[in-house]
């Protein structure tokens, strides 16, 4: 197993490097001049030259690329064009909020999606199945920004139970949770819909297997058959989708962050793209790529934990 992990980590390096190069090139090919964005109404030849020089944009592209690689190898993601603060610092400020939301949304999607899918599978063709899959379809089709606004109207404005914006106080876990509930439900419900559908398919397949027939023949209750036999074996596709969902959540919370005015990586990435803040864009995308590669490795390792037939030499 450790050899496998080492091999995966080594192959991750060229993956990340290749992705970093492609990102660098694409970013610099996007039309739009970051100097003009910074100057706006203060445009003048003197200001343009000064800002362009400060941002290092007067150097040739290959020189900037080599500088970027060299700095990245030392863990230095550069300095944001707009804030002049280290990109790593900007990301470190925001990442905890995105991670909070992604993890919470992930838990919501599992907490709702897995049981919903299992119930649907157990009651295939009956009302519970129709209701569960109808709910899943609704969840997949509902735009997150619309759902978020509805939740704000109901729980923040009319009921005044939960705050509409912000992320809470660091030294007050209750405040953090209160600010997390609505965004996490918004983000999690879409993932729950997908989880429910995948879980239903996987459980149905498992329920059709000989070992389940044997377990039923032994007189085990349906609940025990589901929990100890069918679910465990249905987990491989579920784990795969869960991993993809986690990656989606880490990169896809931007709309929810904006609706709830929550800080997060997604928002600063959108701002960075809008303002052509190249180092900020590169830094955030590098973090995303690294996380996605790591998540894929973890998912592969989880297969071995879930299914003893899977081994890694």
């Amino acid at each position, binding site marked *: 197993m450790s050899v496998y992990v080492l091999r995966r980590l080594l192959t991750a390096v060229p993956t990340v490097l290749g992705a970093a190069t492609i990102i660098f090139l694409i970013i610099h090919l996007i039309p739009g001049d970051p100097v003009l964005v910074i100057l706006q109404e203060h445009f003048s030849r003197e200001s343009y030259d000064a800002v362009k020089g400060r941002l290092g944009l007067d150097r040739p592209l290959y020189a900037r690329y080599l500088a970027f690689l060299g700095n990245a190898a030392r863990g230095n993601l550069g300095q944001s064009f707009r804030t002049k603060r280290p990109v790593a610092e900007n990301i470190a*400020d925001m990442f905890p909020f995105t991670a909070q939301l992604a993890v919470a949304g992930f838990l919501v999607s599992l907490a709702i999606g897995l049981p919903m899918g299992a119930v649907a599978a157990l009651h295939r063709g009956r009302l519970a199945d129709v209701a569960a899959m109808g709910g899943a379809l609704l969840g997949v089709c509902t735009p997150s920004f619309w759902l978020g606004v509805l939740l704000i109207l109901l729980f923040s404005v009319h009921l005044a139970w939960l705050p509409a914006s912000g992320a809470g106080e660091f030294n007050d876990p209750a405040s953090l949770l209160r600010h997390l509930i609505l965004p996490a439900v918004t983000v999690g419900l879409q993932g729950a819909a997908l989880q429910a559908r995948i879980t239903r398919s996987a459980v149905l397949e498992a329920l059709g297997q000989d070992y389940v027939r044997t377990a039923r023949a032994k007189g085990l209750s349906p609940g025990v058959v589901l929990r100890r036999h069918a679910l465990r074996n249905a987990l491989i596709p579920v784990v795969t989708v869960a991993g993809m969902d986690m990656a989606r959540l880490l990169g896809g919370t931007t709309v929810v962050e904006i609706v709830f005015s929550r*800080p997060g990586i997604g928002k600063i990435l959108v701002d960075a793209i809008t303002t052509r803040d190249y180092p900020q864009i590169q830094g955030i995308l590098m973090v995303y790529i690294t996380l996605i590669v790591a998540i894929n490795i973890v998912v592969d390792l989880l297969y071995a934990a879930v299914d003893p037939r899977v081994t890694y030499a």
Partner: protein
Amino acid sequence: MSPCGPARNPASRRIVPFVVMLALLAGLGAAGARAAAAPAGQELMIRVVRDVLNMDPAHITTTEDHSLAFVVYSGLVKLKTGSISEIEPDLAIRWEISPDGRVYTFQLRRGVKWQKGYGTFTAADVKYSIERIMDRRTGSRFRGDYALVDRVETDGDYAVRIHLRQPFPAFLTSVLAYRPGLIVNQRAVTEKGEAYVSDPIGTGPFVFERRVPGQRMVLARNPDYYGNAGRLARVTFKIIMPDPLAEIALRTGEAQLAYIDDPEIQRRVMRQQNLRHEIIDSIRTYMIYVHLGKKPWSDVRVRQALMYALDRQAIATHVMRGMAKPANSILNPNVFGYSAEDAYRHDPQRARALLAEAGVRGARAELYTANIIKLPDMAAVIKENFKAVGVEMGINIFEFALWMQQTRGERHDLSLTANARIDADQYYFPLLHSSARPYPNASHYMAIDREIEAARVAVNPAARRDLYARIHRKLLEDVPMLPVVYPRFVMAMRPEVQGAKMGPTITYNLADISIKQ
């Protein structure tokens, strides 16, 4: 694993992971922010649209940077609240301008303390602040604002003299009293280096206390402030992005004071019984550049026709929901040099006659604009206005950075934008002087260079005003740009907020604000 696996306590299997996850969630948020001290005295929560990016005056970019910098720092002079042309003393207690308009001599206030123990303010700080922006290595966006400065001299610790290469009557209002004019402490800037952008040191009425990234910036009253810092002990600038959420925040008390830009939300806020509001004329002007280098727009009759075709009142009423006035000039009415004279009314028949006279039939214009504020909505109405007189128009909407590049690339026939400046020179020189082609003079207009240059150096205010009036009349004839509307914005507040006023540059008179308990 055996199908019959070992027996386990089901309760602990459910509870333990849940508790671990809860701790993880809370722990993920522990990014080292300091706990807020319990407030003593009145506190105000002001809504801002985005996080402060940079608190170094040489690099402030956004409205939020500006709003915060103006209460943390001071300049030699400052704009009177609510005005963009009247100035009053700040770090300078009096000043003289030489008869030729080239030398500004300031007598400085004594005993002014820098925040957080950085010593006493002297003339050396003024010289450093200005020369730092003029230095190309600083890479300041305001470097061009000081292009006319020849040198800065100190005369002891409490007098400073600024020598200009030529007279520049707008120097006090548009440079020293505005964003480029904020004074910094040399020791703080050099000691803190890159960290300075996140820990500013000024002489203003409020001290930067802390920033919770992405959520808020907290300022505390400066106990050593030389002027009236007011009754507020602490001010929090809270980030609430969309205007609809700002309205909710005001209603629920999550914010107490908010600037609202979206006309739809402005109307809703104004109808709220439990909120108060003030309507403020902004310094923004919506306008259309016409590319004079392309046919048929090079024909003045065609441009005049477009001006007759444009229904500015309809845009003000329907797109801006009544929260705007039709514009007659690219200068905003708040700006020195503005003339109220208007030569155009909405007259499609007159527009068609002019187009026929110019021999134009079936013309098509490509309008470029950005997907911000109300520009796309306006473009839709403008398209219908022009269609009614026989000019077809394609609307090309770009994100902001791309729009700037496209306009610079001259592919547009028309370009719809909004500008906000505080002096006529800041409109005319960059937008209409031939040296500013192709950007920001996206019209490629070259006919009033002499008048613009003369107005720029006219030391006598009456002569300057007269020159701007002549420029305005010339622009009414030539129509290189089509003024559209002047928007208003709304400052909304909860009933407990007393004395709040906002300037058209979105700065707050914190010294006059109190909270009714």
